[in-house]
């Protein structure tokens, strides 16, 4: 559209002084029109991004500002009192004997989930990255838990993991007496991790699959001609080429693992003891069950700082191992 206007301006050119004045005048009109059109384009752009920006402001930035504000206050919702307490909540954070085990449980869950999810997702993607009959069916099967309701998925697993549930029933068939999965510390955490891995492994599998399909065949074929075996080719050629996707899935999975809540609430309620009480569940308890919204906000800030640090660290480290960034 701008091009058309320029052509119109050129065809209206005149000779002589009056012509130059007319040209300048026309140029000014053109510039004004360009600015107007540019403004018009900007406005349309702003309108397109407005819903997203409004959503981020309302549900991310504003709450972030508010939790900083709340963390300096104590809010008793029953008594309807709201008072400034300064750094009292921060002091409480450092003296709370549960914070260390809660952070420990959060770390164990995150590490277990990231390792389990990414390795199984990559394995599945490699296995399903081939032309074979019914391959689409298998891809759909492995992806289907992603679209199942999280709570429904967790409730079903809760039944399976009961002492007299389906998992132990299967183990009994082969003569093994299974543990009481959700009632013993180590197996409870393992169970929660496994349930979450199976829930979302399909998403990362699809992402890895798309990355694997983007690896040029001529490179792997050249490696094969040079005598590289499949494992060497995968380790030296394929993995570096899909490293940007590994970075993306790692960041997404780590951030997601730090936000786990429903699985804990449904399966273990943080127990046995506090062995599966992760940070989000602990802040939920403090804020919504014990009515300590100020302290809950302080814990939310801790979570925000952890996510921020991990993301920044990964972003910085990408230069060392992500192929396209070198």
């Amino acid at each position, binding site marked *: 559209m701008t091009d058309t206007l320029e052509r119109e301006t050129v065809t209206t050119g005149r000779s002589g002084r009056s012509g130059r004045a007319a040209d300048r005048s026309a140029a000014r009109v053109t510039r004004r029109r360009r*600015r107007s059109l540019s403004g018009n384009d900007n*406005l349309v752009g702003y309108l397109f991004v407005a819903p997203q920006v409004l959503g981020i402001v309302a549900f991310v930035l504003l709450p972030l500002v508010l939790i900083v504000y709340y963390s300096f206050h104590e809010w008793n919702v*029953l008594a309807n009192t709201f008072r400034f307490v300064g750094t009292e909540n921060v002091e409480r954070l450092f003296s709370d004997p549960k914070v260390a085990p809660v952070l420990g449980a959060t770390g164990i869950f995150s590490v277990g989930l990231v390792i389990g999810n990414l390795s199984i997702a990559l394995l599945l993607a490699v296995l399903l990255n081939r032309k074979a009959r019914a391959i689409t069916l298998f891809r759909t099967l492995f992806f289907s838990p992603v679209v199942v309701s999280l709570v429904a998925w967790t409730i079903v697993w809760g039944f399976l993991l009961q002492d007299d549930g389906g998992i132990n029933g299967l183990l009994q068939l082969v003569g093994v007496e299974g543990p009481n999965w959700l*009632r013993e510390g180590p197996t409870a955490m393992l169970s929660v991790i496994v349930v979450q891995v199976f829930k979302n492994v399909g998403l990362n599998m699809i992402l890895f699959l798309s990355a694997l399909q983007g690896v040029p065949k001529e490179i792997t074929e050249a490696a094969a001609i040079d005598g590289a075996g499949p494992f060497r080719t995968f380790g030296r050629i394929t993995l570096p080429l899909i490293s940007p996707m590994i970075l993306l899935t790692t960041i997404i999975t780590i951030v997601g693992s730090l936000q786990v809540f429903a699985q804990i609430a449904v399966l273990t*309620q943080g*127990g046995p003891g506090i062995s599966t009480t992760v940070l989000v569940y602990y802040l939920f308890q403090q804020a919504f069950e014990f*009515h300590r919204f100020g302290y809950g906000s302080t814990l939310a800030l801790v979570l925000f700082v952890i996510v921020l640090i991990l993301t920044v660290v990964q972003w910085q480290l990408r230069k060392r191992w992500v192929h396209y960034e070198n």
Partner: protein
Amino acid sequence: MRMSAMKLSATAALAVSALVLSGCAAGASDDDTPVSLRMTVWTSNEDQLALFDEIADAYIADHPEVKSITFDPLDFESYTTTLTTQLAGGNPPDMAWVLENAAPDFVSSGALVPLDETLEATKGYDLDDLSPSATELWTDGDGQLAAYPFSTSPFVVFANDDLLAAAGQPTAAQLQADGRWNWESISEVGSAVNATTGKAGFVVRDFDYTQWDYLSTVWGGWGAEPWSKDGATCTMDSPEMVDAFTFLHDAAFTAKSMPGPGTAADFFAGEAAFTVTQISRASLLGESGIQNWELAPLPEGPDGDYSIVGQAGVGALAQAEHPEQSAEFIAYFTNPENSAKLAQYFPPARTSQLDAATLSAANPVLTEEQLGDIVVPAIENGEVRPSHTGSAEIQQEVRSALDALWVADADVEGTLGDVCAAIDPLLEQ
């Protein structure tokens, strides 16, 4: 175009302002405008909700200042959390049911408006008809009634005679006739039922190895209490409590008369011989498929007979917009006439209605004899389930510490000592 953009921005700003202002206007209270009231409840039973609607419709017909009254069912498991979240979100209900374990927090914090004045001013209300023991939990430090205890439901034992017969064990009636209606016999019979049928012996419903306060229906037989009368000292490690938990531990791990942790057994699905539960669960018997069942009081413990009741109150939220209208509706909702109607689901706190004939008229499942012999004495003599300020945190701390007890080789006394170490600081607050 720049002008247009500015105009557009100005129009948008005006529109937003108008929306905000109209929102403020809509939220403002006007004395002459009919109000809408909302009560949060934890029942989603259609018959019960229909009864509430019937009472509300009759009230609205005589009270033009009230436009509508809605009953908002919330999930029972997360009821108090959801209610407090609504308060925090600036969307408090006008009225709310409150569970007995949350009562001390709601009553002591001033979250509920005092009802005495409104109830006393209501014609024919007869506030003195409420028994002092029923209102004790709901009375604030100034002696004001913060919520009306609309349900005083005793814990009882239901026995599945079909299953007991199949296991070749005596029925509940036979046990009572033989003078063996005690926890020791229940565990013996339950153990035999489990050994012969694979089904559970006895189940403390809703305990599920997390809601430990339901075990008050057992440890009451040992004369145990979780904390001192003034609530300041933990007594979870008392000898009586140690004995009670030793019995429970043996029942779960040695006698196998009680399902162990992580094992589900629903009495009303025919999966257990006995269950301890509230009388209001009798409504589940109709669909249970159990042909022959019995109702019995809580079994005797080493300390003798005892009764435990669960309570629920209804109050008007001070933070809501229409506390006065809410208090007036509560006065109508719980007046003698409506209390009698509600009695079919919720045993009343009114002494004049606490007789077998009145309860029987409203309750089709239980006989007048069962109500007179078991339910009425249990309500009259029952002790309310344990409650304390900061109950949610105490509940969590005890649950967490008690997890160590629900393993085969547990140190009962040591674990209960750890429970006290965990909650003593909370009780002192």
